[in-house]
């Protein structure tokens, strides 16, 4: 089947080639079947907005393929990028489960396949499948932990280089591949967007990248980034 945006849509969770260890993918057969009956598989082009900060939750969005950026809008209308979600993540979870307004805006940065589950269906599914509910609790606990890691870093001042190194290391732990030359990953964000994420200018980000290139720490071609010397990046964050 040829699909738009160059994505192969996978309809069935049970024989999905994208299945990973994460979240709902490895539920038991029963759980997975029930999940399949309530999910709506949708393909989104790049730049589609899934939900907006402050909206009443409609449901959760499970990311199967592609990446989504989460951002918040400051009072003066500037966009600040919180992070980039990877396949296997579920978005809008805490808002849906606890019936609170969405905390951030989610926008696709590349073509994505997303399973949407309506709020009522999702809540019923959780009540009926203890296993899935337990996983939700685990996922939320992890999110809670991340929030505290962020709070802890708030009071501390970091240089732009330190923040960039931290970001790259974080991406290395996510969707990356180990190759002979180093850890290979695709940059989902432009220099401009990275600048918005770490609170500096586009020029500074470009300068820091060429600095790291000059030091042979990274290799950058187009949107492909190879981290050649992970230890050097770690050393920057420990300074």
């Amino acid at each position, binding site marked *: 089947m040829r699909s738009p945006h160059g994505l192969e849509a996978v309809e069935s969770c049970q024989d999905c080639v994208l299945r990973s260890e994460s979240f709902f993918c490895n539920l038991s057969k029963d759980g997975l079947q029930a999940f399949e009956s309530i999910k709506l598989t949708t393909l989104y082009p790049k730049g589609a907005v899934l939900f907006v900060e402050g909206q009443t939750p409609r449901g959760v969005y499970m990311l199967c393929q592609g990446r989504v950026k989460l951002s918040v809008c400051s009072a003066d209308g500037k966009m600040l990028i919180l992070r980039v979600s990877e396949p296997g993540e579920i978005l809008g979870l805490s808002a849906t*489960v606890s019936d*609170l307004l969405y905390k951030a805006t989610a926008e696709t940065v590349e073509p994505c396949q997303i399973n949407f589950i309506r709020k009522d269906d999702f809540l019923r599914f959780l009540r009926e*499948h203890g296993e899935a*509910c337990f996983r939700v609790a685990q996922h*939320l606990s992890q999110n809670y932990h991340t929030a505290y890691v962020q*709070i802890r870093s708030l009071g501390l001042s970091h240089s732009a280089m330190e923040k960039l190194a931290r970001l790259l290391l974080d991406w290395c732990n996510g969707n990356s591949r180990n190759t002979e030359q180093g850890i290979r990953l695709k940059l989902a964000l432009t220099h401009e967007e990275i600048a918005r994420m*770490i609170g500096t200018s586009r020029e500074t980000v470009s300068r820091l990248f060429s600095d790291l290139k000059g030091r042979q720490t990274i290799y950058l071609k187009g949107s492909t980034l190879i981290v050649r010397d992970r230890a050097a990046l770690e050393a920057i964050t420990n300074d």
Partner: protein
Amino acid sequence: MSRARDSGSVEYFFNSQSLREDQLFQDMLPEAVKAFEAMKQIVLYPEGSMIFAEGQRPRGVYLLSQGRANLVMRPKGKRARIIRIAEQGEMLGLSATISGEPYEVTAETLTPCQVGFIKRDDFLSLLREQPETCFRVAQLLGQSIHESYERFPLFDKTLPASAKLAHLILSWCAGGEETDEGIRLRLPLTHEQIARMIGTSRETVTRAFGEFRRKQIIQLEGATLLILNLAELESVAKSCQRSQKLSCLRNF
């Protein structure tokens, strides 16, 4: 530390008024309540003792059935900050117990406390066996996540103390009582404690309260706080958010 048996305190936890979370455990199955009751160990702590410490491997959850406890965080090389004060009826160490990550904060008793402790393994197997309990726990966690994001501005050092104080007061409003004059609430903390919460001195907190009073934003009588001008309080909190552009989020 001494141990004693008691009954009814788990019931109390599920029916407690202090659970702002709309009686999350209200219609929990009787079997679950019984299971909780059987698992928990009652521990008594004198004032000023530590229930668990930030960075420790999670041992389990703690039901605060009597007393109050400070939840404190110590950022590297910084003064300790109070995150919030846990009231009677709250469950502590929940997310660490589920995720297996170290405890995020230190819990120190402010008054003598009676605590029901449930071991991690026991608690996790209870969650697996009782989907309804697990669901409520998930709801509670979702709420805590949102609350912790709302707490971000309190840690932003570029914000003036008055804006942080406004944020803090706004976060209490939900628990207040609507009257003709405005929202009335009991100040749950001393000025000293507020200072340790927003990272400033006691004097600065007292001065900021004085300023709010002079501007007719609030009225303070003893420990009763009356918010006369909610819109103005919101703008104090917001105007500074604009100038700092949520810089807190930048420290990736």
